[in-house]
């Protein structure tokens, strides 16, 4: 079985999740088994994944696993379905708070909170606050959107959480965690416990140990001598230190989704990206490292010389359907348009794209930029402040349009001519790959990793020296004033997208799967199965 390890999945996600989704569809299409693995408890996990066409049997959430809730027939639970064990109840709805207050006579029995309209228009129960007959709030029950009580929090008399309990689908406690005061007197999670169906109780001091138990059980469950279980760490933070501790062998893979170096311009010498520092230092304990670009694979090999297998597999996949679409000639597009679909964050440096446009403005007065994406307001709104300043300095205020997030990225890309980037660093940049598949011509700094590989200089766009706004502006001006060249490069953008076709990316994955099988044959030769004989009770002795 192939496991793609992540932490959580929500309505809004980042590039890593998108990469996983694309990979999932590719594996499904090629009938290779896989599971998306999540570790966070999330009552809406299946909801959000299902919105992204992921099936229940392709999801393996740790809490689902312990709760036997991997595949649950959904049920609608509404306020009236909650059994308080008390007769003669009245329900006072407070629609502004999405809840009912439930009374018996004049005494409060509970508060039933329901999911907001954007999740469910049936007022499905999200949580229930329970009161005892003496008016104490003693517990809060949280419901999964699929319609079962998933986790409960037991309260202390002074209204703090004492114990959290996760229930199996048939109502047994299966995971528990506790809150106690630490040495500073602050309440803190102080321990975990799991209880199996057979009654085996395991204690854990932290979530990581819980994850290790989970991964061990999963590895045992899918263990096969023919093929290894392949664990791909897409987010490595919570598993990088425990995967090598699995009891039975497996094939463990570190997947780099970003530059391994803190300064992507100095990949061979700069301080390591703290997200990957631990896993790269421990690279010898994994079986393989995947990079999304050849350039990064090369740099990783050059800098660390790891002895494990190195693979280059693009994180983007362009669906076959895309290649069948009619190509849109440059003349049918919005003239002098540049587009970017990305989070508007400081490290994306869109202000520099605007400054580059400033240089092109003289030759191309109608040059304009459309940005689509969530605005990252962190660091005191640095990103927007810089953009506004650049607009002002270049006099392009009316030619820069900042739109929100769009659901139809392809549509806006299809209407534009250039795709502009000036990021500090990238892991791959799915958006640019998609833009190229829509025929956009890329203009970018020489940025590791992705843009400088997606854009092949002089073929499907231009790669200029990092930070050289003037050069970037010159390439924009050149393209907008040379329609034939622009069209030629757009054709190349369509052509070179073949690098990321389903067929070609699957070829890259197949290399890894075959390589893992080969290595597995050696590993399994050395594997000693655990002792199962002679350890049960065989006589009356104690």
């Amino acid at each position, binding site marked *: 079985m192939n496991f793609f390890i992540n932490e959580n999945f929500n309505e809004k996600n980042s590039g890593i999740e998108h990469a996983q989704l694309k990979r999932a569809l590719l594996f499904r299409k090629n009938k290779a088994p896989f599971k998306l693995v999540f570790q966070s408890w999330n009552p809406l996990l299946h909801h959000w994944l299902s919105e992204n066409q992921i099936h229940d049997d392709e999801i393996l959430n740790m809490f689902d696993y312990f709760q036997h809730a991997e595949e649950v027939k959904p049920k609608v639970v509404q306020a009236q379905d909650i059994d308080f*064990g008390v007769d003669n109840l009245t329900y006072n709805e407070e629609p502004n708070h999405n809840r009912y207050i439930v009374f018996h006579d004049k005494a409060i029995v509970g508060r039933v909170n329901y999911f907001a309209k954007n999740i469910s228009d049936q007022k499905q129960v999200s949580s229930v606050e329970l009161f*005892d007959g003496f008016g104490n709030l003693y517990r809060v029950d949280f419901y999964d959107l699929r319609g079962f009580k998933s986790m409960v929090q037991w309260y202390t008399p002074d209204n703090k959480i004492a114990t959290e309990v996760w229930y199996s689908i048939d109502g047994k406690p299966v995971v528990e965690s506790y809150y106690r005061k630490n040495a500073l007197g602050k309440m803190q999670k102080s321990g975990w416990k799991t209880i199996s169906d057979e009654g*085996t109780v395991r204690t854990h001091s932290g979530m990581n140990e819980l994850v290790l138990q989970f991964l061990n059980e999963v590895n045992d469950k899918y263990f096969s001598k023919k093929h290894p279980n392949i664990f791909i760490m897409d987010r490595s933070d919570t598993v990088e230190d425990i995967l090598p501790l699995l009891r039975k062998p497996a094939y463990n893979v570190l997947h780099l989704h970003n530059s391994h170096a803190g300064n992507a311009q100095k990949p061979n010498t700069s301080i390591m990206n703290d997200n990957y520092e631990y896993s790269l230092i421990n690279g010898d304990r994994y079986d393989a490292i995947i990079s999304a670009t050849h350039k990064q694979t090369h740099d990783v090999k050059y800098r660390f010389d790891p002895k494990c297998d190195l693979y280059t597999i693009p994180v983007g996949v362009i669906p076959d359907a895309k290649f069948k679409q009619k190509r849109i000639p440059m003349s049918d597009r919005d003239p002098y348009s540049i587009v970017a679909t990305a989070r508007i964050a400081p490290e994306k440096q869109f202000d520099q794209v605007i400054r580059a446009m400033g240089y092109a403005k003289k030759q191309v007065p109608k040059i304009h930029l459309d940005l689509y994406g969530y605005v990252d307001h962190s660091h005191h709104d640095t990103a927007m402040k810089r953009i506004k300043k650049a607009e002002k300095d270049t006099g392009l205020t009316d030619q820069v349009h900042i739109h929100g997030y769009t659901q139809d990225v392809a549509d806006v890309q299809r209407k534009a001519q250039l795709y502009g980037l000036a990021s500090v660093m990238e892991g791959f940049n799915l958006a640019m790959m998609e833009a190229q598949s829509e025929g956009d011509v890329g203009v970018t700094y020489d940025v590791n990793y992705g843009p400088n590989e997606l854009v092949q200089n002089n073929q499907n766009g231009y790669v200029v020296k990092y930070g050289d706004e003037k050069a970037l502006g010159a390439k924009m001006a050149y393209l907008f004033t040379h329609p034939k060249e622009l069209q030629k490069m757009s054709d190349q953008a369509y052509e070179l997208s073949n690098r990321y076709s389903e067929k070609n990316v699957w070829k890259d994955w197949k290399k890894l799967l075959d390589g893992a099988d080969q290595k597995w044959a050696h590993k399994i030769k050395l594997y000693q199965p655990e002792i199962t004989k002679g350890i049960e009770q065989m006589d009356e002795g104690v």
Partner: protein
Amino acid sequence: MNNNMYYFVNENIFTFNSGTEFSAMNRQKLFNKYDVNSKIMTRNYNQGLHQEIRKNGLGDDDIINMYDYFQHVTKVPYHHVKLRYSKMIDKRYYKIRGIDNNKSMILLHGHKVATVQIFPSTVGEIGNVIYYDDFGNVTSKDIWDARGFKSKTQYMHPDGQLGHELVYDYHGKPVMEIAHMNINGKLSPTMYKLLDYNGHNLRFNTEDDLFVFFMQEILKKHPGVLINDRPTLTEPVAKVNNAEKRYQLLHNVQTTDAKLSGSPKGKLFPILEQFFHKDMNKYDGIIVSTEDQKRDFNKLFPSLRCYAIPDVALFKDHEKEIQKGLKPVDNDNLIYIGRIAEDKHIDHLIQIASFVKNKISDVKLNIVGYFSSPKYQKQLENQVKKLNLNDVVKFKNYSIGKQKAKLLSNSKLMLQTSFGEGLSMNLVEGLEYGLPEVAYDVHYGPNRIIKNDVNGYLIPQGNMQEAANKIVRILSDDDLYKQFSKNSLEHAKDFSADNVMSQWKKLG
């Protein structure tokens, strides 16, 4: 008696029981012997209940416990789950380190994650499992049933006090939740919730509310009569709406000063106020052990129906015993059996033994039972030391069954110094061992068991010298001893199963 079921309502059967429980168990055996349907019905949670009733010669069918009922474990097989072979511990990861026969530690990487308390009276079976967090706090505690399954889990509040409890069925599914929160600022059980009971949850505010519901559910299935052995349960029993009849059974004298028990001036034990001041009219009557007590109640509470039935019956074949002649007695062992508690005035026993010793130097006194408190134990031990009776007075552990029979067989005379009794079942049991008996003549019971100068002596309350004199007289006159002994055996017939059962049959 009709085909009714008789329910003997009680709190519990303990590891160390008092007369109240012995009486109920004795009655259960009696009713079994005469094929009258009955069960002991208990309220309290007790992980060792089925072990205890077995020790006392009863079986699973003789008892119906509230928690058992809701857990669907009134009758489940007995499994001996040994810690070292239990699936509870995954020994691939955790180490079990034995501390002693009663306790083991569970270690993970050298860190103590749990303590297992071995079930009492077993070899290596799981009793309780106490789990710790990273900081060494107790987080939760699994309570195992003697029959070998995890029966409930207690979760602690962060301050270490009991938080909530989950009670399980045999397969580990929760059937009841108990919350412990504040009532007027004091931590108390505040909720008992039955889960999925016949398809519904049911919330109760107190354990007694739940107990009322439980009794009603049982009576719905098997209608019958409630006989309440415990004054603490007077109110819940009164609330039951579907009992054929209900009776309060009184095991003791009713007033704090037994001498005033027949007088309106006598002060009721507070625990009895619920019955006599509130719920009396809801009961079909009260059952006491002696005609004397019945007479007093008739006088004081004319509207209350009262029945006198001894709260113990004897099962031995007395005729044979008598024909076999008297057992040889080659010692001067005095015995007291019962609670070692202040109200039994054990200090008098010790003083009496001291007086006897002056005349009969090799006299021994065995005091058999459990101490009411460590403080009282210390007080008595000091007294023994002070009177230089270390070789005379022996405290023996609480004994039942064969162990108790052996002690009684090896005794020569039974002694009792309590200031108040309902009947004194220990004196009754002494009769069937042919023991002459010496006791204070108090309300109620001793004068029903001891016929003065026939099978022993009744002594004015507190007259220790007189008690000693009578004991010396019996022990130093072999013929008198034999006569008294024979008379005791003869008198035991009054308390024979046949006789006691015939009185039960008169119950309306």
